[in-house]
């Protein structure tokens, strides 16, 4: 039996594991962790085999489809894009599950934890496998529910319950936009088919959608007096969904708060899986985006801005996990930027962004798990109380430093020596440069370079404050058990070498998705449809461009070393509530105040309440009018009931006479 036929098992096994763990977990040791671990391990093996097979024969895409409600379908599609995501998600999820057996060993409800993570993994895998946008949306929502459950895992804590609600509601804004996009897309396709859809054609399948891009692009909508192509509208709505899930500005507010869940959850949701769903969505529907010039421009700008914006907040956070949360937002910004520059580099953008996504999943999961290891051992995640942890936890310290080097993208330009982040992040920054050269808008490039400096500052600040110097408080601490350090070491290995080993093959492999595997698809002609001309890779970039990201990263290292390592600069004078810039950053640009006091209270509470009251009054008036009319009609009709039999007889006779006359007249006319 060919392994391709087992592809459907990839999400089904973790889903089964969810059910089993949910009902049986309590009776098994460590909350039944063995069930999801075994299930996900099997999924991982299947995904890996399919990926290797695809790598050898890129045309052998796994595609199975079953009809559902006549013009919809459920089905799976494993093309290179899905295959790399599947392998990464199952792999990272597997390591996190193994790590969790150690990390959650002291928890009260480990079986609930493992059941929920298994369901989460299942829905994420389902999302990746979907061959149609509706099924993708269903899994997208499932992922949202699971993140709500997991962020609020310690629901007894009010802050965790609040964070869970915040994550759920904020991403919901994006989800509504996504759903609107699907509805618009569906009605457009329905219109294109003139309402008669041939048998066996499922209009929400990706290949069907992509085959009709030029038709959709021909439909225009008039929005606020502007002629907007429907393809732009739909892609912007999709991107709205991605902004919510992937924590892009301005819907990023949920992600730092989501650190209230167990650290392993942060590693799973906020490094490897859920937050990358937005990037995956844009990558999956990339042919639509490339036909929509304005949308891709929005993607590039939002991505680049988010990369920098989140970085500025990352440098002042004192909470281990929050620094990493801002780092995640920032890195997701990079991925979006990588997709956004597709205007210049075509389908290669998907490869670039996905490469960073995969590498990021490794090193960010590693960072989170290291932070979890520290928190597990020391019991605090306030960096101001830590220091010198490297002495008690050498493995954790070394793996975390490796992850940080990967995050900052240390490596030697022009060679294939470097950490994995070096290959992917520099590729994004370089294509942002190319984007600037082709389109003339340099802002994304400048933002991404500035963000590289900030990345380096916040992560090395974390390293120096946590692992070096003297302990600031008296904590015990011990190295974590093997169930935790082994996954750390494996991830560290990947963070170190994965990029270098695969950088050449990966890009071409993922780009295969859109080059060979979809009918009627030619990226450059689609780009022309959107008004782009893909850049020719003519000439090398200036040597400075290649070195600049590294220079920025090293500058960040030097700056933090001077401040936190040698303590040449006294931070106390800068870190004070009187410094307006620090204050602004520390309060996260007062976003909470803006969102709570202005958006929630002023706009939602008061604005909506006012509108609601007006509508309410209108309805009250209508209801009252109806009741009044009915009452009055009854009152006047009541007069006819005299109780005198003769009146009734008169009425009957009059009525019958009128009927006879009526019938007579009608007969005459006929």
């Amino acid at each position, binding site marked *: 039996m060919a392994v391709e036929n087992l592809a459907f098992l990839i999400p089904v096994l973790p889903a089964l594991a969810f059910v089993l763990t949910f009902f049986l977990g309590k009776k098994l040791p460590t909350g039944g962790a063995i069930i999801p671990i075994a299930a996900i391990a099997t999924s991982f093996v299947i995904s890996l085999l399919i990926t290797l097979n695809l790598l050898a024969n890129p045309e052998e895409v796994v595609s199975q489809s079953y009809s559902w409600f006549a013009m919809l379908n459920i089905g799976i599609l494993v093309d290179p894009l899905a295959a790399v995501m599947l392998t990464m998600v199952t792999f990272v999820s597997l390591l996190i599950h193994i790590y969790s057996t150690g990390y959650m060993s002291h928890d009260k409800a480990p079986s609930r934890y493992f059941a929920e993570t298994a369901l989460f993994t299942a829905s994420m895998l389902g999302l990746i496998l979907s061959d149609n946008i509706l099924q993708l949306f269903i899994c997208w929502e499932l992922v949202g529910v699971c993140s709500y459950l997991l962020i609020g895992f310690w629901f007894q804590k009010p802050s965790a319950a609040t964070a869970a609600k915040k994550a759920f509601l904020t991403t919901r804004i994006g989800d509504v936009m996504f759903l609107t996009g699907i509805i618009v897309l569906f009605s457009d396709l329905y219109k294109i088919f003139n309402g008669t859809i041939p048998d066996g054609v499922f209009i929400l399948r990706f290949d069907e959608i992509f085959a009709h891009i030029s038709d959709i692009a021909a439909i225009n909508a008039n929005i606020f007096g502007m002629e907007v192509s429907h393809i732009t509208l739909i892609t912007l709505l999709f991107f709205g969904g991605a902004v919510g899930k992937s924590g892009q500005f301005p819907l990023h507010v949920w992600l730092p708060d989501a650190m209230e869940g167990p650290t392993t959850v942060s590693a799973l949701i906020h490094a490897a899986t859920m937050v990358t769903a937005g990037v995956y969505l844009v990558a999956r529907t990339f042919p639509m985006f490339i036909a929509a010039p304005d949308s891709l421009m929005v993607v590039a700008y939002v991505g680049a801005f988010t990369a920098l914006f989140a970085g500025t907040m990352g440098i002042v956070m004192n909470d281990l996990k929050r620094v990493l949360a801002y780092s995640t937002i920032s890195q997701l910004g990079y991925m979006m930027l990588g997709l956004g520059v597709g205007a210049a580099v075509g389908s290669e953008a998907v490869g670039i962004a996905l490469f960073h996504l995969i590498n990021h999943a490794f090193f960010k999961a590693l960072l989170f798990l290291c932070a979890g290891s520290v928190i597990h051992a020391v019991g605090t995640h306030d960096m101001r109380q830590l220091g010198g942890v490297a002495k008690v936890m050498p493995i954790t310290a070394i793996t975390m430093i490796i992850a940080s080097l990967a995050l900052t993208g240390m490596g030697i330009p022009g060679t294939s020596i470097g950490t994995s982040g070096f290959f992917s992040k520099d590729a994004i920054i370089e294509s942002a440069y190319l984007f600037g050269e082709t389109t003339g808008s340099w802002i994304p490039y400048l933002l991404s370079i500035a963000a590289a400096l900030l990345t380096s500052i916040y992560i090395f600040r974390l390293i120096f404050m946590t692992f070096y110097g003297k302990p600031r408080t008296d904590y015990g601490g011990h190295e974590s058990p093997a169930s935790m350090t082994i996954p750390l070491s494996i991830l560290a290995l990947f963070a170190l070498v994965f990029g270098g080993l695969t950088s050449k093959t990966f890009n071409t492999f993922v780009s295969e998705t859109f080059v060979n595997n979809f009918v009627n698809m030619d990226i450059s002609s689609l780009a022309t449809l959107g008004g782009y001309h893909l850049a020719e890779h003519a000439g090398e970039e200036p040597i400075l461009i290649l070195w600049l990201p590294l220079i920025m990263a090293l500058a960040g290292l030097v700056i933090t070393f001077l401040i936190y390592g040698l303590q040449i600069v006294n931070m106390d004078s800068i870190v004070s509530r009187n410094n307006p810039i620090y204050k602004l950053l520390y309060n996260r640009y007062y976003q909470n105040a803006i969102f709570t006091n202005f958006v929630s209270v002023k706009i939602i509470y008061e604005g909506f309440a006012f509108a609601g009251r007006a509508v309410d009054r209108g309805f009250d008036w209508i209801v009252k009018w109806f009741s009044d009319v009915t009452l009055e009609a009854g009152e006047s009709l*009541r007069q006819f*009931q*005299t*109780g*005198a*039999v*003769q009146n009734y*007889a*008169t009425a009957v*006779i009059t009525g019958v006479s009128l009927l006879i006359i009526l019938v007579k007249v009608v007969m005459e006319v006929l």
Partner: protein
Amino acid sequence: MIPIVLYLALAAIIFSIGLYGIMTQRSGIRILMCVELMLNSANINLVAFSSYHHDLTGQVFALFSIALAACEAAVGFAILMALYRMKDTISLDHINVLRW
């Protein structure tokens, strides 16, 4: 043979008298009598058509109708007697217990 239209005219006249009576009279007895008039006009029609078509069905119906009219009159008088005992009147103007 007397043409049928005369019978029908007679029946129509009697029916109209009955109808007029029902709508104008105040005494319950008189109204009952008017109802009898209307029923009898119908009987005239039935018998006239029966003899015209040489078919006895109409006459049978007329007999039924007379029997029913007798029953109806008996019930009607009984009601009026009861009403008179309660209200000391059989003028329908004063009997409006069906009113709201």
